[in-house]
């Protein structure tokens, strides 16, 4: 019988939430790494017992933890993230040059084919790869050195590489997104990179259509159609049908097109989910009503999904890595909030219930669908 395991990263530790495939009764385990910030955990698609976790602390720095038994036991692996060569500078908030300094790992993306290979998106923005199960890390420095790096600037949350999408159809192609630089793509396995931000418009930067400088909050794809990308930007929900070469807005009838997560249904490539929040200055749902919005048309036409979600006095946020889907039929959708709730829908978003109410602020949620 199939089951689902959610890997939940919070400000004060990690939790695993497990359920049978009916997704009615959940078991909560944790905290793991209590007191540490867990930005992200993710399991290998080819070996779900292999899970990587980013554990960090403002005091004690970055750790990478690895489990080989589905999260029951963990082992600290390599945590040396050294930029390749002389790191150089990016722009600071005031536009002055600022040296690249490693701060933390925001996102871990295991390889689609090899459990020993995993990518790490870090702050200050760079991409690292490990081919030995996380023991050692090497920067894919072509990303920072392709030319636009000195013009990158941090967003309010820091200059982080937060999204890594591996193309299921082309092992040489990787997409990454950086706040506040934009989206970048490699077609040669990470050796060379270029910005792919044509069509983005950001009124809050000096040149609203600049090649780089856009605060992309997250991008998502359906594995059956990797040339189609969806984006939640600082403002605007966007779509590309040509692997990021061109973007167009699909915000349509959303009550606000500001938000952080964006996710795609596991079986319907045109079904997309976002969680609008009021504005860049007010990071909570409009009208105090927590609503997921779903488009079944690939954007522009959105419906509010509110059944089971709080519809008054709700002022939580949903961070960029805190929404995910499982691959059961019907598709399960999950998200965690800064208020510590993790909500689950076993019917593609039609109805919701809280698995837990009172975790620390949730930073990330990933789903593993287990046989």
């Amino acid at each position: 019988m199939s089951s689902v395991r959610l890997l939940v990263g919070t400000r004060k530790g990690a939790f695993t939430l497990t359920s049978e495939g009916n997704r009615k009764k959940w078991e909560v385990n944790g905290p793991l790494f209590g007191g540490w910030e867990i930005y992200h955990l993710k399991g290998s698609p080819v070996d779900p017992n292999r899970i990587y976790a980013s554990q960090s602390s403002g005091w004690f720095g970055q750790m990478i933890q690895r489990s080989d038994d589905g999260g029951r036991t963990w082992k600290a692996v390599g945590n040396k993230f050294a930029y390749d060569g002389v790191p150089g500078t990016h722009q600071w908030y005031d536009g002055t040059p600022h040296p690249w300094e490693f701060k933390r790992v925001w996102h871990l993306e295991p390889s689609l084919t090899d459990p020993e290979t995993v990518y790490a998106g870090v702050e200050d923005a760079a991409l690292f790869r490990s081919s030995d199960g996380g023991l050692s890390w090497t920067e894919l420095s072509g990303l920072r050195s392709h030319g636009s790096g000195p013009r990158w600037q941090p967003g309010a949350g820091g200059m982080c590489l937060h999204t890594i999408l591996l193309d299921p159809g082309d092992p040489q192609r990787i997409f990454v997104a950086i706040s506040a630089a934009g989206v970048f793509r490699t077609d040669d396995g990470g050796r060379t990179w270029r910005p792919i931000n044509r069509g983005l418009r950001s009124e809050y930067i000096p040149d609203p259509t600049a090649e780089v400088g856009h605060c992309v909050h997250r991008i998502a794809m359906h594995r059956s159609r990797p040339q189609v990308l969806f984006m939640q930007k600082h403002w605007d929900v966007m779509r590309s049908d040509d692997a990021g070469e061109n973007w167009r807005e699909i915000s349509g009838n959303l009550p606000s097109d500001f938000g952080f997560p964006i996710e795609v249904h596991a079986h319907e490539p045109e079904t997309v989910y976002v969680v609008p929040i009021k504005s860049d200055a007010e990071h909570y749902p409009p009208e105090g009503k927590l609503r997921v919005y779903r488009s079944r048309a690939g954007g522009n036409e959105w419906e509010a999904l509110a059944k089971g979600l709080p519809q008054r006095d709700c002022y939580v946020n949903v961070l960029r890595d805190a929404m995910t889907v499982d691959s059961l039929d019907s598709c399960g959708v999950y998200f965690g909030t800064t208020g510590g709730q993790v909500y689950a829908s076993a019917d593609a978003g039609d109805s919701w219930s809280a698995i837990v109410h009172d975790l620390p602020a949730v930073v990330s949620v990933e789903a593993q669908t287990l046989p």
Partner: protein
Amino acid sequence: MIRVVLPVHLRVLAGVPGELTLELGPGATLRALLDAIEASYPMLRGTIRDQVTQRRRDLVRFFACARDLSNEPPDHPLPDLVLAGTEPFFIVGAIAGG
């Protein structure tokens, strides 16, 4: 024998319930002590000092014999009472951030 007291998060990480004890030669320095800690407990690499620059992490401090040794040059010898195991060497996480 040198006695080292770690902050709770690092004790948990290293899997040690109490003080660490390490054998170092006469005149051992702070650098030698940190090298020995990291050699015995590799999971602590990068948590006390940066692995690239070797600088003490900003919110970590060192105390022993009622003195703040945080900014002592890393190649100065440790205090005699620490080297003798009479006084512990404290590695402390700064009280900051709530």
